């Protein structure tokens, strides 16, 4: 594909840049990203397109022709006019971070929880298995001592495949509130088929990490609406923290290491 000159940069991460280019959103990956990951992300999105979940559709996967990104792999998705839930929520409920309006925030959290549960109610058996992915990620984190890893792997080993769609990165910044009010979910790179409780633990951990004021009310609402005990979500926090460490984000390391606490005691 080709990028037009009118493209605007939406986000920049260590291995990709995201542009809006007309009615398309194009994710351009640098050479650190294996082609298989790129196709996997596109395939994941395509699988979700086959369900009732509202997503920004994948339009094309190809190398960029010409320009600074010549030869890089890219995925083009349809552009959804709207804003992320995080942006709207932060504007409305905590323009002043030190003095958030928790009642208002609660309304957004509730929207998010309802959406997450509706996604988890969908079954998509052809997606990658959550258990395999977690096991692989936990095992790859050599920064965790082998004894602790052993106990974490033991937890993963006991994971049952419920077959639910688990987004894997379900945070307010990945939810788009379209101009017509509909909610769309983007970034399906990490989606798996698995146990919703682990998905919720992941969201809880990411919220604690990035938007701590959301975290506790999220946990409260999720456990109530999904009718699941908090301990069950807590049980998976060390595991998903270890899996996050596998992504190698230096700035999160200390926080995540503190969350990795596991023992399988008698």
């Amino acid at each position, binding site marked *: 594909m080709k990028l037009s000159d009118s493209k605007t940069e939406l986000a920049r991460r260590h291995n990709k840049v995201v542009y809006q280019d007309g009615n398309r959103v194009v994710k351009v990956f640098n050479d650190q990203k294996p082609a298989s990951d790129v196709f996997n992300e596109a395939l994941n999105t395509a699988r979700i397109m086959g369900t009732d979940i509202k997503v920004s559709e994948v339009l094309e996967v190809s190398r960029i022709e010409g320009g600074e990104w010549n030869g890089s792999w890219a995925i083009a998705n349809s552009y959804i006019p709207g804003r992320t839930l995080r942006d709207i929520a932060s504007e409305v409920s905590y323009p002043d971070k030190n003095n958030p309006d928790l009642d208002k925030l609660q309304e957004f959290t509730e929207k998010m929880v309802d959406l997450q549960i509706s996604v988890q109610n969908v079954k998509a058996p052809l997606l990658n298995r959550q258990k395999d992915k977690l096991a692989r990620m936990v095992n790859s984190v050599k920064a965790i001592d082998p004894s602790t890893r052993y106990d974490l792997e033991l937890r993963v080993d*006991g994971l049952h495949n419920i077959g639910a769609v688990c987004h894997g990165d379900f945070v307010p910044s990945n939810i788009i509130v379209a101009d017509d009010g509909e909610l769309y979910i983007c970034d399906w790179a990490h989606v798996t088929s698995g146990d919703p409780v682990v998905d919720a633990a992941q969201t809880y951990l990411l919220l604690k990490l990035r938007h701590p004021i959301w975290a506790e009310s999220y946990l409260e609402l999720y456990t109530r609406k999904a009718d699941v005990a908090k*301990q069950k979500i807590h049980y998976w926090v060390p595991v998903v923290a270890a899996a996050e460490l596998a992504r190698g984000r230096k700035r999160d390391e200390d926080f995540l290491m503190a969350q990795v606490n596991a*023992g399988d*005691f008698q």
Partner: protein
Amino acid sequence: MADKQAYIVVDSDDALDGALAQMREAQAIFATYTQEQVDKIFYEAAMAANKARIPLAQMAVEETGMGIMEDKVIKNHFASEYIYNKYKDTKTCGVVDEDPAFGMTKVAEPLGVVAAVIPTTNPTSTAIFKCLLCLKTRNAIMISPHPRAKNCTAEAARIIAEAAVSAGAPAGVVGWIASPSLAATNGLMRSADIILATGGPGMVNAAYSSGTPALGVGPGNTPAIIDSTADIKLAVNSIIHSKTFDNGMICASEQSVTVLADIYDEVKAEFERRGCVFLYGDDLEKVKKTVIINGGVNAKIVGQSAHTIAHMAGVEVPEGTKILIGEVSDVSPAEEMAHEKLSPVLGMYKAETFEEALAKAERLVADGGYGHTSSLYVNVNEREKISAHAAAMKTSRVLINTPSSQGGIGDIYNFALTPSLTLGCGSWGGNSFSGNIDVHQLLNTKSVAERRENMLWVRTPEKVYFKKGCMPVALRELGAVYGKKRAFIVTDQFLFKSGFTKKIEESLDAQGIAHSSFWNVAPDPTLQSAEEGLTQLRAFEPDCIIAIGGGSAMDCGKIMWAMYESPEEKFADMAMDFMDIRKRVYDFPKMGKKAFFVAIPTSSGTGSEVTPFSIITDATTGVKYPITDYELMPNMAIVDTDNMMTQPKGLTSASGVDVLTHCLEAYVSVMSSDFTDSWALRGMKNVFDYLPRAYDNPNDVEARDHMANASCLGGLAFANAFLGVNHSMAHKLGAYHHIPHGWANAVLLQRVMRYNSSERPVKMGTFPQYDHPKTLARYAECGRYCGCEGKTDEEVFENFLKKIAELFDHVGVKHTIAEYGVDEKYFLDTLDEMSLNAFNDQCTGANPRYPLVSEIRELYLDAYYGRPASSYDA
């Protein structure tokens, strides 16, 4: 891996399969060892482990950084000494129990390769414990240590393996995984023959998911209660003693204590006096957040001292602090102090009442300690509280006035609790076993059961009097021997009006025995007539009941007797069918507490005077109750031919052929014995010799005399050997088509005999002594005894059938059911139901051939139409 090495070390995931194959070879040799060889190995291994208890404890603390060396010494000591002491004399090899009289031999065999998962909290003692159990039971053991404690666990196993091999064990029955990985542990659990998984919920879950039989244990959350009646010093110091043991790492250790309000301050003061520190406010919060992270215990504080934990939390307490205590009120998982803490940190609750304390403990158990251990401190005389507590706790160990760490592992504070370092938590804890694991869980026990025959018996009335004219003589015993004062006579209208009871009354009068009579027994005795007589009987309060008549009066008398003796018993219960009279569900009430029972027959047929049977019909429902129990056996039978001289021809015929059927069925019954055979043979011979004479000439005293004896002999025979399918079918022919009982038997008899005589029956009767189909030979024996001849059993049998046919013709027995005037359509309409009911009759069980309902149906049809009999061979 050198061949000579005593043990097997799995040094990579890929080496596991090869190592297990090698271990299986070693175990196969070990499985052939004798008890003497095994006991020597067990002894040497226990000695070696015991000697190494201090270095192993030092290693464990050094490697894991958890616990207290001196306490680990106790655990190692316990694991070697207590386990040796417990099983030194236990038989675990080959024949472990023998009972020649009952033909039972128990043979113990090893299971094979045991996968042993060892926890970090007790890395050496649990290894010693499991190795010793495996050596004692000739199993091989492959250990999967926890990576945090792999070196000390391996060292414990090495010491035991070397001692075992020096004592003669095959090299390679002990091994371990050097660098434990989940892949290797899972692989081991899949391949082993059984898993002994001591660990947390994750490990136990993995064990049970592996598909291999598993004995797993899991976490505890032991709640202690201190009741108002408890000895406070004992309670508080026991808890301190237990909670500080190895820094609280034993899974049975107390995690919380609930104290009754009236002694709360005193308990608190005692805790403080003994060096425990109560935490408040921020200090408590800091410690909570340090101990529990994300709802689970912080791995870094497990097995640390109170001082270290406080320090980690940024709280300063004196160095020698024994326990950190937080006073809390919430028992839900939201409260950190309500969790298992595996450290000297204790939650303390206050309860206003004992019931409130129980409710709190129940909740604490439910949220993390299902199936493990609970404890109560109480005055031992408070039995109600102790039982209420035991009832409320869903824990496999309920300890009273006992430090739970040292108490739960057994044999230290209670000597009946099995010493063990692997404590089962039952189904509550997701385990397959709720006791303390011992050698028996590591053995397959074969029960070698040799064939034995049932004990048989001869039961008769205490006295059977016979001979013409014996009744008045026998009756004199009622006064002279038994000292009876009040006699109650049961009979039917006909006999009463014909003066049969007169002679009895005269005898009673002469002895000064008061008497009363009930003479309204219906021909097929009904419950209603028995109840009518019972009213009279109860009012009279006799100490003796005399039933005179045919089967009806005697049967009715027996029922009235039973209802008089035990008015509270239910009729339907008494009538419950049984497969073996000795194993029946219903326990028949003891008879004879109120009255002595005399039976006097007036017909030569039923033999009821000497049997434990009575058949009675509920007239409102039409249901026939066959009541059977030796308690119904009359105390005295008086068989006086004078009472039988006036039997009409029809009765003589019908009751006479009934006698023949009794004798034949008792003779071929699966329960027949030398005792019943002799009665049956003489009884049937008498029928052949004297029934035609008694039939032809009612006044033939000699014939009547022998028929009276034949009837009684038949009764004695079937009272002990029971009957068969002929009677089952005849009972239903009587019930459905009202053919007199004796003739109903006779019209079926020859066909049933041919059916029973099959050498290839579809199914034979089930009774140990009935070892092959042999009824043809048995009938031939009867035939020969009654004078039939032939070169083979078959020939004698055919001649015997002819002899029976001649007898039947002589006494007017009809040849088919149809000839008895049974309507064909009605017969066919009821046939299926009647066949099923005949199959279900109590008499069917003793038949030598186990009948199919379809066979019974065919027999009925043959007998209805007079079709040639068939043997229905398979």
